[in-house]
């Protein structure tokens, strides 16, 4: 028996529950340089974060290694929505790529997010829009939109009115109110959640006595963040998992890690930083996940989603009521 790994995230049918998260896979073309790269073993590709206007990005250094992780501050370098829709998406279509594509959008104001979403809505090969709400809200002192439910609502509502494509809200862990933000996103029209985005971190160069990254702070990813990510997925699933599926991510390097996220409540997982050392990770993780599920007697992936909550205090309360 082989467990059925198919999953559905916001209407996107995926043959495999392993996606590649935004920022780790460029615009979908670079990894194709590996002769043995198997795109059929990727559930979906979240494209590089795109803004309305082209963005230069941060000065280097943009990356630093940390214990069991990577700190990055790329600064959303991208050619702008128009160039992506006009040049890159048709090229991807011509290349024969059949993996569902998720456009990841960013902006400084809700209107800008909405406009980027509108541009992508006309593209024939975009399956969903993922909204990066970790961007600073320029009009409100630079606090991330995703840090507060009210600001998150404004962004998701604006994008919701701009497109009929499925919406995925990408949640930031840099807030004490992630459950409130998740609920606000769903109320405002998000069909699914992806989590977690990177954690804010800093490395100081002790020789120059300055922050190592030119941007000073960066986003931490890799195994170092995994327990945080698992806890957040568990917490959000507990509160709103019945209303929207979760794409869980944060430091997954193998099938054991991915299985943890499924048990915590994720219906799909994102595999990002590990791609930089192992481009076969998505296929290997999908295969390993199927083995785990088989061994545990799950016939379908969906049967295992959130299984770690079984018998939890919360669930007992639910059963009593």
């Amino acid at each position: 028996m082989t467990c059925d790994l198919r999953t559905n995230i916001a209407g996107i049918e995926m043959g495999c529950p392993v996606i590649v998260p935004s920022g780790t896979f460029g615009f979908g073309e670079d990894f194709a340089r590996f002769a043995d790269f198997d795109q059929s073993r990727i559930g979906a590709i979240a494209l590089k974060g795109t803004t309305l206007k082209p963005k230069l990005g941060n000065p280097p250094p943009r990356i630093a290694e940390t214990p069991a992780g990577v700190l990055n501050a790329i600064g959303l370098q991208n050619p702008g929505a128009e160039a992506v829709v006009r040049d890159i998406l048709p090229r991807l279509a011509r290349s024969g790529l059949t993996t569902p594509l998720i456009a990841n959008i960013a902006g400084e104001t809700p209107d800008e997010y909405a406009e980027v979403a509108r541009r992508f809505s006309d593209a024939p090969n975009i399956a969903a829009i993922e909204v990066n709400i970790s961007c600073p809200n320029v009009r409100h002192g630079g606090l991330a939109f995703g840090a507060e439910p009210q600001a998150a609502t404004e962004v998701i509502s604006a994008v919701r009115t701009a497109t009929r494509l499925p919406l995925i809200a990408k949640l930031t862990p840099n807030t004490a109110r992630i459950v409130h933000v998740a609920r606000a996103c769903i109320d405002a029209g998000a069909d699914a959640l992806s989590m977690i985005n990177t954690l804010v971190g800093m490395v100081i160069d002790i020789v120059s006595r300055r922050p190592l990254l030119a941007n000073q702070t960066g986003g931490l990813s890799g195994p170092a963040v995994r327990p945080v990510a698992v806890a957040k997925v568990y917490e959000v699933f507990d509160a709103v998992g019945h209303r929207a599926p979760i794409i869980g991510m944060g430091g997954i390097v193998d099938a054991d890690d991915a299985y943890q996220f499924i048990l915590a409540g994720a219906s799909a997982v994102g595999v990002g930083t590990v791609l930089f050392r192992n481009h076969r990770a998505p296929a290997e993780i999908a295969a390993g996940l199927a083995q785990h599920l088989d061994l545990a007697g799950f016939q379908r992936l969906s049967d295992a989603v959130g299984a770690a909550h079984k018998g939890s205090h919360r669930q007992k309360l639910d059963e009593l009521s």
Partner: protein
Amino acid sequence: MDMSKHEASGKPVHRESAPVVAVSPLPGGHCRLVLRAPAVARTARPGQFVNVAVPLDSAMLRRPLGVYRTHNQTDVELLFKVVGRGTAALAQAREGDTVDVIGPLGNGFDLSGEPPEVAVLVAGGFGIAPLYPLALALRHKAKGTYLFVGTEEELPLETADSRMHASFVDADVNLTLTDFEELGTVARVASLRERTGLFRGLVTDLLEQFLLHPETAGRAKIYACGPWAMMKKTAAIAAHHHLDCDVLLEERMGCGIGACMSCAVRVKGADGQPVYVRACVEGPVFDAAVVDWEAK
């Protein structure tokens, strides 16, 4: 910027589980590692690099290392300095171990056109490693190939008294690097300290002395690899003498194949506006005239 030189090198990338053929420590905390990686060895061009994984508990990211030499179309020789956890782990590899390597990566030196009359290679410290395959490729092509190395540390390569004449320096400046002299490259070493056989001064002083010398002045092309300040000075000297200059830039890197945008280099864009390009795809070799040398 001249895009013809900087077109994204979307060339196939190989991944190999490469057995360690030889590993040996070199002076000054350097290491020499020979890997059996035939797909990389067959296709690597001068100035390209490989990205090498070390065990996950040592480092998450691969380490970009310039290809020093290839042997018999099967082996790739890497020279590197142990500077952190990743390179330390790599230096611990033993014969019979396998190392996960991807490559060849980057654009490499553009050798497609007419070879230069005179090729001048300028290296700072361990910047010599990626220049060796260039010297090899230019052998019998350029009329004269020169290598100038600036270093304050012990050189990791074999040195000897040169048997090749160099009119642009005093006769007692005669220490050479054996690997390069065997290729017919006139190699000389510069140091700020007084050391027997070495040119006293910056490597860029040695370059200027060479370019101003009546017997060697002429249509030279300069190739440089080393610290930013050294390459910036080299680029300025090249511009002053109206000479072409290619620089090989070593940046902090993530994926090595163009996806993560970490290894950004600021260059002058087509419209004169600054733009960041990727050292791992559009580079690591750049026309010195397009690099924004004030960016660091």
